[in-house]
């Protein structure tokens, strides 16, 4: 139900956000998205605050707003889903510009659109200001299981290699003339994908040999842990804290 980013989103700049340790940014992202999702849908001003905070963070990161907006394009499929809601929703209906729309559907569309966009924007910003190896390192420092981090490390390292091979296969098939009917299309792609899996597996065996050759005995070596300062946490968590305040305020004020 979504489009695909297949290239890493990182954009090199010199900024406060780029310099923050990655685990601070990951925690900040999770907290910010949590605040957005927890915000009751009718509190429009809270979403305004969230949007302003996000734009502020984008500017602080010295990332061009257009860079972020272009990468929001993958959300088009779920925006379309959201747009359908007022038409297929049930319950009470209200006329909008002459068309009778479902009230709960309108609320649903709003919720999906605003929370989805804010969440996606925040995710894109985090990835744009943090290099992939640093993201993995941050997850490791956040105590994610070491097996998961190790697998993710290899995955990320070889994604470009394998995606590249898949693309070359597709180009080669297109050059030989694709059969447009979908069954005809699927078979050659699938056989090529099967060969690709075998090649990937055999590469995995060679990688293991290379690891053995450099002294690997079953445990990935531990590289030193970088500590973060309280100031860095304060800076990083400033935005999500404000987002949570605006999420909680409606309940407090009632």
């Amino acid at each position, binding site marked *: *139900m*979504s489009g*695909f*980013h*297949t290239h890493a989103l990182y954009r090199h700049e010199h900024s406060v956000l780029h310099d923050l340790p990655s685990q601070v940014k*990951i925690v900040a992202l999770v907290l910010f998205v949590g605040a957005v*999702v927890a915000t009751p*849908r009718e509190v429009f001003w809270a979403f305004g605050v969230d949007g302003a905070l996000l734009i502020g963070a984008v500017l602080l990161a010295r990332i061009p707003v257009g860079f972020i907006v272009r990468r929001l394009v*993958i*959300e088009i499929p*779920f925006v379309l889903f*959201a747009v*359908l*809601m007022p038409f*297929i*929703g049930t319950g009470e209906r209200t006329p909008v510009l002459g068309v009778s729309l*479902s009230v*709960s*559907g309108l*609320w*649903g*569309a709003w*919720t*999906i*659109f605003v*929370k*989805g966009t804010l*969440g996606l924007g*925040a*995710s*894109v910003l*985090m*990835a744009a200001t943090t290099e992939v190896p640093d993201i993995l390192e941050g997850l490791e420092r956040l105590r994610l*299981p070491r*097996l*998961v981090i190790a*697998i*993710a490390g*290899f*995955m*990320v*390292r070889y*994604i470009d290699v394998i*995606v590249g091979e*898949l693309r070359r296969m597709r180009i080669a098939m297109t050059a030989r003339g694709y059969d447009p009917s*979908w069954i005809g299309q699927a*078979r050659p*792609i*699938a*056989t090529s*994908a*099967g060969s*690709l*899996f075998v090649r990937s*597996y055999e590469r*995995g065996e060679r*990688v*293991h040999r290379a690891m053995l050759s450099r002294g690997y005995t*079953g*445990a990935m070596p531990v590289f030193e842990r970088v500590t973060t300062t309280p100031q860095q946490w304060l800076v990083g968590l400033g935005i999500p804290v404000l987002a949570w305040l605006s999420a909680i305020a409606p309940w407090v004020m009632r």
Partner: protein
Amino acid sequence: MHIPDGFINGTTSLGAGIAAAGGIGAALRQAGKKLADRHIPLAGLAAAFIFAAQMINFPVAAGTSGHLIGGSLAAVLLGPWLASVVMAVVVGVQALIFADGGVSALGLNIINMAIIAPWSAWLIYKGLRAFLPRTQRVVAISAGIAAAFSVEVAALGFVAEYAIGGTGGAPVSTVLIAMGGVHALIGIGEGFITGVIVATVLAARPDIVTGATDLLDTSGAQPRRIGRFILAGVGAALLVAAFLSPFANSNPDGLERVAEDKGFIDTAQTSPIDGQSPFAGYGFGGDGAIATAVAGVLGVAVTFGIGYGIVRISKRVKTPR
């Protein structure tokens, strides 16, 4: 099928996150038992392959195209426990590094693509293979059929999540028909592609298909048929429950109909636990159709669990040590 933020409400997303963490934690422990250290780079490369494979798309209906999920492929190639771990890594990397799938929906996406998809595929695959001949062709076809159904089951997982905490405003029955319908077609594509991929891999390197290593076993040992029949039965029951119960006729069944006709339905006493059991009356809260399907699946699982427990206990009684 990567759910973005905002589709499912906060409490449901949080609950899903906790459930997903528990499920993947269990998978890590189980996978870790059989994992030689050489498997770690292999798992990483499998994850990279699944990521690339998810880019494969195929047309399903006018204008729409479907993508491979790959959960069933992972299950047959890596075994279900490692498949869950690998799929979870794929989904997690997609969310955090590629901003694909909402961070708040990570638990939901892991449940659907890293737990439901591989496991439903594995159960159906093992169920089919339990009573079919042991050939490469059967392995590939079973993998394909399992893949097709697992896509539908995963879609039903999403519909269940929507029924519990969806914010959309569309009625669950509409979502069920839309998602269920589209994913039935996507399942056909994924099933076919998975079958061909497994066949290709089997032909080149049969030793690397974890789900089919029994094909290499030349010792002639008889397989434990009983266990496999249980799996086959569970798999079949799950299929029936998942697909047919939403369409189960809401008209009263034979006995109730007769009772109504003869006017004695009012004298039927409600069962003592009616109203206390969460599953009393075959459904629970929420919209009728999806609740029925979920209840059906859960009912099968509970029945199986009780039945299996009875078999184990009775075996212990019969063969004292």
